[in-house]
């Protein structure tokens, strides 16, 4: 019986527990003057028994599945012949992997190496025993839970209170997933980055101007360690994001102003969703558009006026990224502009100001913090955007401010370093995590500032 079947068995038992608990409560109540005397509705007794049956067994199963491989491994290690267990850690893990595969293949008898064969047989034996113990243990825990909770049903048992408390705990657990995710992100990128900074000093990474993360094929190869100076990546990211913002901020802001101040409500009802379609298009589509349509167009345009434009120019990438974040800027600005109290508008009109004067001299200054917050969020979106740059920006790390040349970005390098087959421990893969850490910190800081500004501003007028 594997884990899935066991899960089905536990679920069935649990459902059975519900039926039994419900019936039991009705029966108990009958002896004490009917259901009205029960503390809770009969179904809550059912839920109670069901929870007692399923929950401890489920928790046990999860723990078992997490810790089982480690324990079996160490038990197997103790039984391995001395010359095998004396191997270095890396080789040992290879051997263990081998044995695992052999045991799963079901062709142990065909193995020629007697040591391996016996070890694999031991492994299979251990695994079978572990599974048997697990199944018996978990089944009895579930059964014990059913019987115990059934025996506890009295007229005054507070089943509803118990069930509701468990529900409350489960809800809390679910809301902690968000915290766990953040912790997970921080820990995973932080630990791998620390390992990276052991081989490449932090200062070299932060201030180095040369990025060429090749790994050596031979140990004596020239430049075998690769150089990890991230400045060209940061510069490239900034260049592309800046182009994107130059496109998106004026367009987004002006369309927000037009939609919230000038447009008739029917035009608004039709134009706003249409603009927001731009935000719903997957980034891989923008990447395709940038690489196959915009970039060649800009290169040809450059050629006709005698400019030398790279086929993966930062300009093309930035423009398309700008298009992508237009709706982002526009909907955030729209929110803050509409939040400016009507009284301020009326006061300006009362003084004889035209509509555009009111907007420029009253609304925008009043909404400025919110707009700035929106722009910061858009910037963080642009910095973290991946697919457009992966498909349309370059791979070579050029340190340049010329938008007609190809530059690379932090996200492009993360993707290039991590797709493809390589061992996990090389500085090359670890560098991706260091870049990820930088990306996470930058966007986090931008987001925190932006959200703070937006929230503070909102409170001012509420």
């Amino acid at each position: 019986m594997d884990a899935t079947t066991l899960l089905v068995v536990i679920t069935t038992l649990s459902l059975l527990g519900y039926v039994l608990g419900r019936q039991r409560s009705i029966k108990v109540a009958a002896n004490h003057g009917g259901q009205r005397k029960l503390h809770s509705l009969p179904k809550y007794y059912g839920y109670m028994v069901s929870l007692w049956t399923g929950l401890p067994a489920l928790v046990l199963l999860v723990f078992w599945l997490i810790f089982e491989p480690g324990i079996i491994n160490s038990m197997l290690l103790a039984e391995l012949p001395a010359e095998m267990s004396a191997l270095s850690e890396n080789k040992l893990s290879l051997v263990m992997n081998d044995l695992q595969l052999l045991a799963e293949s079901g062709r142990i008898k065909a193995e020629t190496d007697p040591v391996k064969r016996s070890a694999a047989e031991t492994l299979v034996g251990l695994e079978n025993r572990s599974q048997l113990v697990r199944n018996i243990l978990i089944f009895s825990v579930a059964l014990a839970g059913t019987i115990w909770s059934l025996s506890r049903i009295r007229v005054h048992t507070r089943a509803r209170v118990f069930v509701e408390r468990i529900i409350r705990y489960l809800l809390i657990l679910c809301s902690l997933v968000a915290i766990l995710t953040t912790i997970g992100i921080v820990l995973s990128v932080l630990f791998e980055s620390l390992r990276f900074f052991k081989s490449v000093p932090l200062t070299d990474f932060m201030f180095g101007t040369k990025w060429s993360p090749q790994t050596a094929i031979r140990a004596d190869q020239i430049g075998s360690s690769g150089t990890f100076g991230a400045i060209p990546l940061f510069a490239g990211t900034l260049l592309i994001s800046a182009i994107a913002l130059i496109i998106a901020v004026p367009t987004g802001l002006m369309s927000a102003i037009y939609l919230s101040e000038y447009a008739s409500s029917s035009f608004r009802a039709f134009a706003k969703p249409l603009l927001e379609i731009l935000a719903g298009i997957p980034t891989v589509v923008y990447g395709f558009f940038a690489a196959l349509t915009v970039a060649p167009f800009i290169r040809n345009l450059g050629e006709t006026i005698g400019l030398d434009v790279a086929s993966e120019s930062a300009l093309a990438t930035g423009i398309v990224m700008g298009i992508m974040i237009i709706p982002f800027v526009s909907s955030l600005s729209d929110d803050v502009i509409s939040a400016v109290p009507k009284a301020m508008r009326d006061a300006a009109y009362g003084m004889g100001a035209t509509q555009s004067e009111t907007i420029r001299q009253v609304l925008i200054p009043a909404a400025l913090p919110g707009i700035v917050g929106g722009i910061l969020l858009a910037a963080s979106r642009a910095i973290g955007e991946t697919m457009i740059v992966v498909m349309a920006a370059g791979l070579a790390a050029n340190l340049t401010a010329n938008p007609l040349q190809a530059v690379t970005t932090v996200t492009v390098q993360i993707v290039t370093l991590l797709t493809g087959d390589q061992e996990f421990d090389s500085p090359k893969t670890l560098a991706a995590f260091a870049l990820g850490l930088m990306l996470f910190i930058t966007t986090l800081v931008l987001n925190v500032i932006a959200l703070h500004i937006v929230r503070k501003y909102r409170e001012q007028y509420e």
Partner: protein
Amino acid sequence: MNNTELIKKGLAKRYRREKRFRAYGLMAILAGFIFLFVLVTDIVIKATPAFTQHWIKLEVNFNPEILDVGKKAGIDELKQANYNLLAKKSIRSLFPEVKKRRDKSKLAAMLSSSAEYQLRDMLLAEPYLLGQQQTVWVLADDDVDTYYKTDDKSKAVRLNDKQKIWADTLAADGRVSKRLNTTLFTNGDSREPEQAGIRGAATGSFYTILVTLLLSFPLGVAAAIYLEEFAPRNRWVDLIEVNINNLAAVPSIVFGLLGLAVFINYFGLPRSAPLVGGLVLTLMTLPTIIIASRSAIKAVPPSIRQAALGIGASRTQTVFQHVLPLAMPGILTGTIIGLAQALGETAPLLMIGMVAFIVDIPHGFLDSATVLPVQIYLWADSPERAFVAKTSAAILVLLLFLVVMNGLAVLLRKKFERRW
């Protein structure tokens, strides 16, 4: 000159400025529309050729000698037969004048490499065809296909001059037919553009999104209920709230790094599996769902809660039996929008190895798979020209799914949303 005159003097200028400002606003919106229009038109135009395919009519003689089998060959022997040669002979028989070896191989290259498998499946299904002559339509190679689809024939550079003449002859003989491309929807990925399809990627997307839905919906709604209905106002809960807002703005690729480090390296889950993809996308969509669910729950007026509490319901009963059903349309809308986002997401899935070249159609949550957006990315990288059309077609399919999902969300909101 008094004040009134001063103001009147400047008035024309101010009105002009007003008009200009207004025009800027309209131009900005129009620019957005134009971008959208150009983007969609560009992709539709590029995608159109991908929806048709050219087939070539061959007279196939299932000659046992060519097949290298006995006259009364059984199924097992037929499985081993030389169908490659059969396909080549069949097209050569149409051009008996071709003698040179290089020309012969160029001629055979005009058929898709799937032709031999098609002939094999045909014979295996009906073994009595052995020794008989049959008319068979087989797929043309993608270069030939592209040649037929290009108006300016001199631009089709992947065929040499002889091949072009052959292709024209075939067309003139009525041996070429243009049909709807069903391969695109029934096949998995392939290195040959004419055999590549999106079924594998679409199935992978389905499994991935299913995992995301099954995990993110209950988790997100539960978290929203707790935060909105039960949580005390203290620093812990504030922390959770700030956290969720920040997670919503973390770049998606960072979630991919998390998935790689935690799910694959730490827990040892298989690479490229829809399960891992779904887990990563769950963490990514969770903030969206929580935020949407919270605002839907918040929109249920307090009078509903007070009424339920007043007649003796417990707080949990109030929430689950009254507040939640009323908030459900809003919650579902938010969930669908979150899932639509997840469906279009590519970057985090690249990190966890869903970029592999996978021909087979996945059959479970642990099979190696890829998803539609990643398939688009992979095809966009392919050098063959025919893949440009395929990529655009895949994009259209993806966009169609997204339109349907968002349409459903709008419908839900329109139909069930209540204003109190």
